[in-house]
């Protein structure tokens, strides 16, 4: 069973629908007992870091995710879920869960330049990912495959070895991060067609060593 963690951040049904479609069983839950029983954990989310962290602490989910990490079960972060596992986010000045060292930063572009460079914020739409490392979960993804992004902030891990894929939107940022039993994407694999579904499918059978 896969636990999709519910912390009142956006519509989680699309992740559940994609997992269902791939033929794996999942539940959407905020119950820490269910999470500790689950074989693997997906930590999605859309919304703002500040209110997300409030819900997470109130529900005790920060500890549940840390426990999942220690227990060695596979964890997949998506979008806001990927940002929330960092130490700190510039969005609402939020202290986050901190299982990956580093901060979440805001895209900053000169407003006057926006139309010359075509850069808009939020970064919304399809963009390509350059793989910096091989990873089982990414074994069906090719360099420059495109994924669907919607975000105004991005994770900046302290340790470069935690960067698995990068994407360019004005600057190059970490769009896939992780180590050991955790992998996290800034984009939405559940909305990214074939390569996105391939990531979810591989995650559902991943056995991190």
């Amino acid at each position: 069973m896969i636990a999709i963690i519910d912390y009142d951040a956006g519509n989680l049904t699309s992740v559940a629908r994609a997992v269902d479609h791939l033929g794996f069983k999942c539940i959407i839950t905020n119950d820490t007992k269910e999470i500790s029983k689950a074989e693997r954990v997906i930590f999605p989310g859309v919304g703002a870091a500040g209110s997300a962290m409030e819900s997470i602490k109130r529900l005790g989910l920060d500890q549940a995710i840390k426990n999942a990490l220690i227990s060695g079960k596979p964890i997949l972060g998506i979008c806001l879920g990927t940002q929330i596992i960092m130490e700190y986010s510039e969005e609402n000045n939020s202290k986050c869960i901190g299982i990956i060292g580093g901060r979440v930063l805001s895209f900053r572009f000169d407003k006057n330049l926006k139309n010359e460079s075509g850069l808009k914020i939020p970064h919304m739409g399809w963009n390509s990912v350059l793989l910096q490392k091989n990873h089982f979960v990414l074994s069906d993804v090719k360099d420059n495959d495109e994924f669907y992004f919607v975000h105004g902030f991005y994770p900046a891990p302290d340790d470069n070895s935690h960067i698995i894929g990068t994407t360019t939107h004005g600057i190059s940022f970490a769009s896939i991060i992780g180590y050991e039993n955790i992998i996290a994407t800034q984009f939405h694999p559940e909305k990214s067609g074939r390569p996105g579904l391939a990531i979810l499918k591989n995650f559902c059978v991943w056995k991190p060593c």
Partner: protein
Amino acid sequence: MLSKRIIPCLDVREGKTTKGIKFQNNVDIGDPVEMARYYYESGADEIVFYDITASSEKRNIMIDVVRRVAETIFIPFSVGGGIRNLEDMRKVLLAGAEKISVNSAAVKHPDIISKGAEAFGKQCIVLGMDVKFTGKSESIPSGYEIVINGGRTHMGIDALKWAIEAEKLGAGEICLNSIDADGTCEGYELNLTSLISENVSIPVIASGGAGKPEHLFDVLTKGKADAALIASMVHYGTYTVPEIKSYLDKREVKIRSRW
């Protein structure tokens, strides 16, 4: 770098598309779920549905369509038409749409944009704008006026001013439809599109007038649009999404070329 998005648009009335896809062998698909699957598989980057069901009792049919589409395609899609309040938005989002678009309801009650953005996030809220060129005047300095009811009712609101205001209210994207170009198949309204796109920082989807791939090239370059809506040119089988994408790719427009 972000790809320019190619977005087929489907009008749905009481659960059936008003224009089916006509394939060369004369097979006509009128089921919105099957059409969505066809476009998803042929590389559409997103899909837009407009519910044009007239009677409000039959609106729930659309919710069922949205649910079935969400189980079938794994790219973003938006739903517009008949969305009047937060409850309408919630139903469509819970059924699995990524975004909702509001048009005339937002012109009449602009706070639906801010309330929607606060409740569901800006990225969910698309402002649909129907625009007609009526000439520059004191009340319409850009010359482009907001219209509703398919262009029959003039609202006396300047399109540029409305776009800027909607962004401030929390719209995450604008779907900009030129009533003058709509249905002509002679190309998008480039002046209108670049005017709006240059003056807001949210993405602009150009709509109305697409007849051939060249028109998409023009609106995505000169028109500065982030995405282009297409309808009859693909529904009637004149072109396919891969043909359009390959044309744009050859002319060096960044598009998503593998799916």
